[in-house]
């Protein structure tokens, strides 16, 4: 029966000791340990939250970058397209201009040639006239060297002269 009969002495010492242990450990062990654990959990939680925030920021930044890039790409395409268009227009205009120039040059050349031709023809005519006179002079001189011939001529002329 000794086994299940609680002894007064033990109850007394257990009560006293346990209360002391409870007080001392609560104050000098559990309190600092719990506070330290809590602090650490808080700091870990904060760190995790910050990491999460940083990740979200990064994502945001990435998305922003992507958007900017997209915009830049669109801008580039637009610029390129305009440039192409402009170049084409310039090219076309240049072509037209050149054609015009060519045409003008051609017509100028043509009129110049014509003028040259005309003056050459006129010149030739003059030369021919002068030459003709010279030839006629020479011929005349030769024809009228002797007085018989002159008389002949006059006779011929007179012969031809038909007096009606």
């Amino acid at each position, binding site marked *: 029966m*000794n*086994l*299940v*009969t*609680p*002894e*007064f*002495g*033990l*109850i*007394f*010492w*257990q*009560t006293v*000791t*346990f209360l*002391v*242990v*409870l007080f*001392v*450990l*609560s104050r*000098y*062990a*559990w*309190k*600092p*340990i*719990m506070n*330290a*654990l809590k*602090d*650490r959990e808080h*700091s870990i939680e904060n760190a995790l939250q910050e990491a999460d925030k940083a990740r979200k920021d990064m994502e945001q930044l990435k998305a922003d970058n992507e958007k900017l890039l997209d915009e830049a790409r669109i801008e580039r395409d637009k610029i390129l397209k305009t440039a192409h268009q402009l170049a084409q227009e310039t090219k076309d205009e240049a072509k037209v201009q050149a054609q015009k120039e060519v045409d003008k040059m051609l017509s100028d050349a043509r009129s110049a040639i014509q003028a040259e031709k005309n003056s050459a023809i006129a010149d030739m005519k003059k030369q021919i006239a002068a030459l003709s006179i010279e030839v006629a002079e020479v011929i005349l001189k030769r024809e009228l060297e002797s007085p018989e011939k002159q008389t002949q001529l006059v006779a011929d002329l007179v012969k031809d002269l038909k007096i009606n």
Partner: protein
Amino acid sequence: MNFSTYKSQFIYRLLPIFIGIFLISLPLSAKTEDGEKSEKFNPGETIMHHIADAHEWEFFIIGETHYTLPLPVILYTPNGLDVFMSSKIHHGKEIEIEKEEKGKMSKVHATEVKTSLNTYHYEHGKFHLESGAGIYDISITKNVASLFLSVFLLMFVFFRVAKGYRRNAGKAPKGIQSFFEPVIIFVRDDIAKGAIGPKYERFLPYLLTIFFFIWFNNMLGLFPAGANLTGNIAITLTLALFTFFITIFSGNRAYWGHIFNTPGVPWWLKTILPIMPLVEFLGIFIKPVSLMIRLFANITAGHIIMLSLFSLIFMFKSVAYLVAPVSVVFAMAMTFLELFVALLQAYVFTLLSALYFGQAVEEHHHEEAH
């Protein structure tokens, strides 16, 4: 990472403790018992002797020599406080006293212990005054000494753990701190938070203290010559009483309402035939009683089994060499089981205490689980 270094450091740190225990045990007053050699081995008596409390701490017996640590005896008598060492018992005179047992007067062996204050009869581990007047025995018995040892150990360990938190603030736990941190967090998160709920914090110091108190003492009880502290009904009774008082003093309106006006019970079971309030009221007391008996019975049973296994060797004296290996193997298996039980019973006691506190501080009773 560097486990071997850590391990050797750990053992190195524990070494002084082992050496200390060894040194304490050496200069023990070695006495030769002039008892009857021919006395037959009585396993029941031996086992009861080992699991019961004693006024001295017996470590081992070699031949006829008992290696014991005498402990102070403190008696509160009508003549005042009487303090003397337990070794005095052995210097006392062997006498025979008349004692009434089961209505019959019979002679029993006792020791007469004389002090400057009183003369006591020491019989069956108890002091009685010659006059028969009542005395209070608050001696530092084997269990009390073991209790002090465990308290010293608890404080030593957890002050170091707390120091670790101060030293490694904001860093990863180290050494003994990292060993106990998961256990502390387990008590906090799985026992206190789980069973009590949001108001767990005010019960946490108590829960941590009983958890480690019971665990450490269960473990100390497993040492050879260790005291059977948590297997002592006085200790479990006191622990259960703490839980009981904390429960009833933290009980809120909802708790008492639940006991005396149980929701969901027909009115006539509460007024005309008040079975429910009676059952619930008895429950307040049955819960701590179950705590008390569970821990006491589990630990004592473990000790009895271990001692029975060893007793077998002495019972089969002639074939002891055959029985001994079997006993030792069984005892080894039992020791492993007891190591587990030591932790399990600490867990169960703490968890149930937490559950009772949880019931006491629960605010609403939406879903009753009966």
